[in-house]
């Protein structure tokens, strides 16, 4: 099954072309032009990974990352930025980002990172399901 990706960037041209390239590589891509729009889309759908621009008008990527991870700690977020300062990189990792890639990003690097994100999410979802089954077994006394 294709990885479900949400690509978030305020540069419409970038969004359109990169999403086209990602789809050509077998990914199921949705797009959002703002952090607010991204939060609304994540609320409605399930994604394997969110590729998020760090600097956007209004709510920036770090704040969006904080909210996304608060709502769903299993969701994997890859930040994409023009320039990453050490401080922002450290902050992004503290807030649970999988990685921080610099623009212009190599499509193969991005694809590998998305595969890593998807695999990590799958492990977390499986672990959660396993815990739930264990709880059910324990509660039933089986």
């Amino acid at each position: 099954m294709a990885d479900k990706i949400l690509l978030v960037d305020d540069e419409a041209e970038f969004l359109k072309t990169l999403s086209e390239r990602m789809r050509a590589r077998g990914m199921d891509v949705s797009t959002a032009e703002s952090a607010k729009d991204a939060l609304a889309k994540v609320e409605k759908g399930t994604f394997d990974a969110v590729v998020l621009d760090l600097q956007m008008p209004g709510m920036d990527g770090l704040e969006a990352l904080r909210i996304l991870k608060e709502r769903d700690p299993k969701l994997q977020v890859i930040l994409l930025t023009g320039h990453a300062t050490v401080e922002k990189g450290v902050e992004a990792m503290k807030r649970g980002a999988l990685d921080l890639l610099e623009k212009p990003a190599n499509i193969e690097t991005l694809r590998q990172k998305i595969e890593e994100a998807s695999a990590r999410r799958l492990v977390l979802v499986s672990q959660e399901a396993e815990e739930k089954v264990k709880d059910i077994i324990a509660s039933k006394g089986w």
Partner: protein
Amino acid sequence: MSTEPDVIGQEEIRYFGKVTASISHELKNVLAILNEHAGLLQDFVAMAAQGRPLDVERIRQLSDGMLKQIGRGDTIVRNMNRFAHTADHERATADLVGLVELSVQMFGRTAAARGVTVQVQTPGQPMMIATHPFVLETLIGKLLDHLAGKAFGIGTVSIGLGWRGPEAQISVPGLATCAGPLAELLASDEVKLLLAVLDATIEFSVAGGALVMTLPGNIDAGRANAPGKPA
């Protein structure tokens, strides 16, 4: 202990650094778009090699998009060059309208990232003043950074320019929501020093929420002369 020239130099370097960071970020965005467009063209070539027909209309759109981004990048670099050259001469006769517009262009992305739009209401003709162009750019940048940097709820900062007798004025209305923090900034030693170098004054009307900066038309002659003032 820092001397006055040290403080001014530090403020100038800080502003230069901030602007350069913002410009380089914007250029990176331009490069990122060009990278994706070129990458998609490569994808099309690879697909064509496997027998898939080329979508000529999509290729035209991509080349148009690339030309648009090259134009955008060129404008950014031109503005950056103009900005860098404002530091060439300690004192110079310069167009105040152009200086303010340049400051706003340099600061545009940073402000936009914070959800603030900055507009300049130009008088429709140049306003030539003899001043310290880079110190003035630094002061305007510091004020804009402050106004756009805090959560004052200002969606649009509108800058007006005009003459009052021989003096040039830069006015910014609609700042009532940030009266306290703005008054604090204006009382800072850094702003006071920058104003002193420019022989300028700033008045802030708490009631009306308007900021007015007054600059001499000719800094060398004091406040009595304005070389570029229209007759």
